């Protein structure tokens, strides 16, 4: 094998490696409805837009350009409308004898104007594409009752589609209707999203809601008993598809007395079904419970040692729960096994109060976590 041939093979292998590596740099393209170059191929760079979010941009070159660096020939990026300066985006170049190509490392964004520049010929080609028709997201907030305890801890924001997640508290405000002032920095600056990006837990700053913690001592609690408030969520908040909520969301409520009592299953009322039916077993709590936790394995039902398959259906304001069995109730003595971590709106759980005063005797006092009931034949 001649040296020339060996060198060619090595070159081909190297080119293949570069291509494979380059493929790896690319994100899989997301769905794109309308992919189109803003202008047809001109004397400027050629843009292959088959993969809309990952176009292949190319310019013709010749051996006289061998000494030039790739970026001295071809650049692709976003142009500053004021300065006309192009800032290149990250990507990888591939070069053949007569072609220099560029592929972005990351998916391009719909609705953004990009430009490819052939530095040698001082020509350019613009490029943009639109995403599929986006729908307007909607929002629901829980709990959404007229009254909340002054040491209320958190809201759950349910969106109809994944939202832009960064610094969510910047979209939220708390307005004290009674004083006519906005409450200063009321929210915890930790963004706690569900994996699907459709539910955010928005916390009042616990450092101000916890007795004896420095922020509580320095600034006081966030809510004042008797005051009326409005939780405001900006309509400008956008979904990942770039669609804003459109209208501001406002939740009005009045702060009531702080709640330092634990939920106590011993005080819950049961409305038993008839055996031989699939009537629901209704449980009435002694206070409102946390919306999300009540929907996340709050309890199980057993007959002897056998788990009873039940649908668990809390009501909208989390004051009652219905258990609907998959088959008819049979006579016998049942046990409700309650998750000890179930909390009320102020973070007091069945297991322990939100704040335990360790100077008090029997400070940590778990309530009962089982309830039994008997169904007669």
């Amino acid at each position, binding site marked *: 094998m001649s040296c020339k041939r060996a060198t060619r093979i090595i070159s081909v292998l190297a080119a293949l490696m570069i291509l494979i590596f380059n493929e790896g740099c690319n994100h899989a393209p997301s769905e794109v409805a309308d992919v189109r170059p803003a202008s047809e191929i001109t004397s400027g760079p050629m843009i292959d837009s088959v993969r809309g979010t990952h176009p292949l941009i190319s310019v013709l070159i010749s051996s006289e350009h061998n000494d030039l660096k790739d970026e001295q020939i071809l650049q692709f990026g*976003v142009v500053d409308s004021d300065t006309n300066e192009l800032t290149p985006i990250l990507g990888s170049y591939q070069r053949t004898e007569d072609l220099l190509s560029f592929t972005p490392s990351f998916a391009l964004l719909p609705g953004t104007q990009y430009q490819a520049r052939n530095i040698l010929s001082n020509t350019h080609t613009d490029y943009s594409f639109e995403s599929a028709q986006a729908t307007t997201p909607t929002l629901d907030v829980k709990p959404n009752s007229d009254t909340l305890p002054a040491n209320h801890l958190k809201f759950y924001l349910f969106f109809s589609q994944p939202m832009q*997640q960064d610094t969510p508290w910047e979209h939220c405000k708390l307005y004290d209707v009674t004083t006519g002032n906005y409450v200063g920095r009321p929210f915890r600056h930790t963004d*706690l999203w569900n994996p699907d990006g459709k539910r955010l*837990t928005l916390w009042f700053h616990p*450092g101000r809601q916890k007795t004896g913690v420095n922020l509580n001592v320095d600034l006081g609690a966030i809510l004042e008993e008797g005051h009326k408030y409005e939780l405001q969520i900006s309509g400008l908040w956008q979904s990942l598809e770039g669609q804003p909520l459109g209208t501001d969301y406002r939740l009005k409520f009045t702060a009531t007395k702080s709640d330092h009592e634990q939920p106590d299953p011993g005080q819950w009322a049961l409305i038993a079904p008839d055996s031989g039916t699939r009537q629901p077993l209704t449980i009435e709590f002694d206070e409102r419970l946390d919306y999300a936790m009540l929907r996340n394995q709050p309890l199980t039902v057993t007959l002897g040692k056998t788990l009873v398959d039940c649908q668990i259906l809390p009501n909208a304001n989390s004051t009652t729960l219905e258990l609907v069995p998959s088959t008819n109730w049979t006579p016998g003595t049942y046990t409700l096994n309650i998750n000890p971590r179930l909390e009320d709106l102020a973070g007091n759980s069945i297991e322990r109060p939100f704040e335990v005063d360790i100077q008090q005797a029997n400070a940590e006092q778990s309530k009962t976590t089982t309830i039994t009931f008997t169904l007669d034949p």
Partner: protein
Amino acid sequence: MRRFHLFGSCLAILLTTALYFSQVTTADAETKDIVAILANVQEGDTGIKRVGRMSFAPNGVLLVADIGTASVVAIDTGDTGPVKKLKERVNDVDKKIAAALGTNKEGINIADMAVNPASGKIYVSVQRKADGLNAIITFDQNGKLAPLNLEKARYVRVSLPVEDQKKIANISGVEFSKDRVLAAGQSNEEFSSRIYSLPLPLTHGKSGEVYSTETYHVAHGRWETRAPIQSFIPYQEEGEDYIVGSFACTPIAKFKISDIQKNAHIKGTSVVELGSGNRPVDMFTYEKNGKKWLITNTDRFHHSRRPLGPSQYWGVRVNMDYLSADKTNEEAARRVVTQEKGPNGIEVVKALFFAKHVAKLNNDEMVILRDNEGALDLEVSALPE
């Protein structure tokens, strides 16, 4: 001459191949302490859904918190040195990263910064807001940007326990200790956090041996609540392994690692109180002139109302002797909030004003991602004597 070229090419390929496989072996095999770091290493798309906090383990292994899947992803970067630290300050880092991702600086969120002590290379985890795209961007000694390829990587993914995955919505730290990886997870339903101990080697697809425990905090020696850890580091004292962590409400506390058992409740011992209204961000230790120091930078809640310095972002160093104090909670040393120094061994670090992220390069220098009137600059800065 032609034979020499051919020989040269073959030699280059052989060397490249040897180098590649030697890196593979190194990453899979052992640290200085003969403890394997990674096992069942995968090749391909890391599948990171939401990139978060990062830190380095030995042998160029980058530990990444994937908040979106409640897991830790360990990436064998192959970046094993030698050290080539950043030569000069890089201005407008946020603008450059944003441009590299095809957007403007308002369109990105920088989650964290880590420095590989073996190479000096800087890694920045970032998310593009508009579509949630995740990226890790590296800066070399010349300040040149390059993407860490997350879709064609050698990696291991270790999920946090299944029963916790639905609840853990934030991983506030991931750190290598000598025989394990530690992670702190925050719940989205309870005001609590768990510390997870992931045994070595980190094994892809395995989470059965993950141990977790809850953390508690006592305020003023009286009010005990669950409390989430904001940042932490591993720490050794008299042969005992600890975690030193900061709670969101600013006390620095320590936890004994041997207390980490399934479903255990461990109570932090508050050793230093930095003052009200500071949100700790990063933490590391260094040793200089025979003294050991803890550095932490914070985001000050009270800045507009009661400024401590020129910026809401500031930092402090604490003599590590404070960490071995037996005093706890209300008796913990309290920084004198009206002065730059005091009590002895607790000092404001002026170089950390405006620092949004900081990471240790070595015992003499740190890398700072600094807020510069709305822009972000990257620079190497001397650690205090």
